[in-house]
């Protein structure tokens, strides 16, 4: 038997595979297709204090081995989330991380405070990296000071796991990573989507209404991996790798590079069973390489 468990902060995950925010809804949408309890954890759709209806359509378009989205953090708001969705998690035997965003630091804090009072999530993923909102989101994540300040503010509100999710759309991601690690984050997750654009040459219109959106899927994997490498070389806190992960081999690349866990996003759209298959494939790899514990491969990259 291989040991797939990973520990981040005080939280033990039964395996290193989570679902990425915004790609697995609130966790109850496809529970008839995959057993959520087999996952290491789920990260919810990003929750904001007030409900957001999101951006006008078209919101998505396919690109070569990827897709661009401009959902705009459409979500039901923290109050409805607590009432309608959180009760479902009581029956889940997996870790639930609530993704949180806001337009100001106060906004982030209000959501976390509300959740701290009302529910018992295993932790928070602070989304300072959404490219699809006018305010907040990526503007926090691309500024060292703001990233530090929002991390500090949230840290003071909770003793639960605080994961800061970074945007790759910056000059130096390791710089930002260093700042949030210093400010008390337990963990860093990366990457959120890359800014991207596509044009319909027949109509000469952008293929999504907001013109620029977030590029995700297999096409971003090598760039995301390089970002994870950069951040792992810089900070000592655990890192969760995200970006185009669609197979066990993809996930293993991130683990070997230094991520202690991964999140699966776009792959779940074209293959709802992808997260579960990835867990199985990691297990097979460990078995066939006689590795007893998944932590043995984390950061095992040979750089000679």
């Amino acid at each position, binding site marked *: 038997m291989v040991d797939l468990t990973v520990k981040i902060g005080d939280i033990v995950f039964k395996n290193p595979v989570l679902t990425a925010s915004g790609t697995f809804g609130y966790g109850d949408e*496809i529970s*008839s*297709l995959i057993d959520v309890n087999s996952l290491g954890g789920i990260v919810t759709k990003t929750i904001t204090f007030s409900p957001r209806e999101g951006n006008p359509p078209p919101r998505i378009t*396919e690109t070569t081995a990827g897709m661009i989205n401009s959902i705009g953090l459409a979500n039901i708001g923290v109050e409805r989330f607590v009432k309608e969705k959180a009760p479902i998690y009581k029956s889940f035997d997996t870790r639930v991380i609530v993704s949180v965003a806001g337009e100001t630091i106060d906004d982030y804090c209000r959501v976390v405070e509300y959740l701290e009072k009302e529910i018992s999530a295993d932790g928070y993923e602070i989304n300072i990296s959404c490219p699809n909102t006018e305010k907040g989101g990526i503007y926090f994540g691309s500024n060292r000071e703001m990233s530090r300040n929002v991390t500090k503010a949230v840290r003071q509100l909770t003793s639960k796991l605080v994961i800061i999710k970074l945007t790759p759309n910056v000059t130096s991601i390791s710089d930002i990573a260093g700042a949030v690690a210093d400010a008390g984050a337990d963990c860093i997750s990366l990457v959120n989507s890359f800014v991207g654009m596509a044009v319909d040459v027949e109509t000469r219109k952008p293929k999504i209404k907001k013109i620029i959106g977030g590029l995700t899927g297999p096409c971003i994997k090598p760039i995301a991996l390089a970002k994870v490498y950069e951040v792992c070389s810089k900070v000592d806190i655990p890192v969760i790798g995200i970006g185009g992960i669609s197979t066990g081999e993809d996930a293993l690349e991130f683990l070997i590079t230094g991520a202690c866990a991964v999140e699966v996003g776009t792959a779940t*759209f074209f293959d*709802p*069973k992808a997260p579960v298959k990835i867990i199985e494939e990691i297990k097979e790899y460990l078995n066939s390489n006689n590795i007893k514990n998944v932590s043995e491969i984390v950061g095992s990259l040979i750089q000679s």
Partner: protein
Amino acid sequence: MRLYDKRCEIKFITSLSDDTYHLGIVSPEISESCIPGQFLMVRVNDDYEPLLRRPFSIFRTEPKEGIVEIVFEVVGKGTKILSERRSGEFLDVLGPLGKEFKINSKNLILIGGGIGFPPLFFMADFQKSENRNVVFYYGARTKDGIFFEKELGRICNKLIITTEDGSLGEKGLITDVFIKDLETGIIRGEAEVFSCGPTAMSKEISSICKRYNLKSQVSLESVMACGTGLCQGCVVRVENAQKSEYKLVCKDGPVFDSDIIIWED
């Protein structure tokens, strides 16, 4: 309703015209449980090109043989690849998805424009043994875009075919012929309209129905990434009881009461 995500064998794939194909897959679970208006998400190959599954309305089922059928038109790379798949091969198929057409009346008017006809065919076929009066308007550009007219003629009380060039049935746009029939009083009594077709047609049918006080449901299209409510990518604006909001075409639809749709230009 349960959702299935299975690797299904292609039972047959036949071309109906230069660019239209009829595909049957083996899926006893979906075949048994799906209802008209619902759709499938089909992964056309195991590659990342194209990346996403493609949505197709269910056209017919043969529950005894466990078969589910779709009819599709080649419009881009995904449908091109699908048209080149062969019987005996396997496809990942997710379904049945979405909300169905809801029948509340004895008189049904089904309006299918172009490749929008499959879900309405399913509806006509599905309820053929019920004692309802079914009138089917089926429009296309030319006669080469009209399929299964013999079968439709059998399962409907009345089939009205329209082509823009007049090569089959009445000449003109399906919407014009429909209005003419409403004006001349051929359609009488309480009837419900169900439509599926290009957005311009659906929009026009919806406004005609409003004008003539006919209840109508429409099956909408949208680009979709997941088909299951995960991505929030497939929204349409609706206005219901003064409340304006986005709904998901994949989960809240694809069938909607047409009077709540806010049609974007």
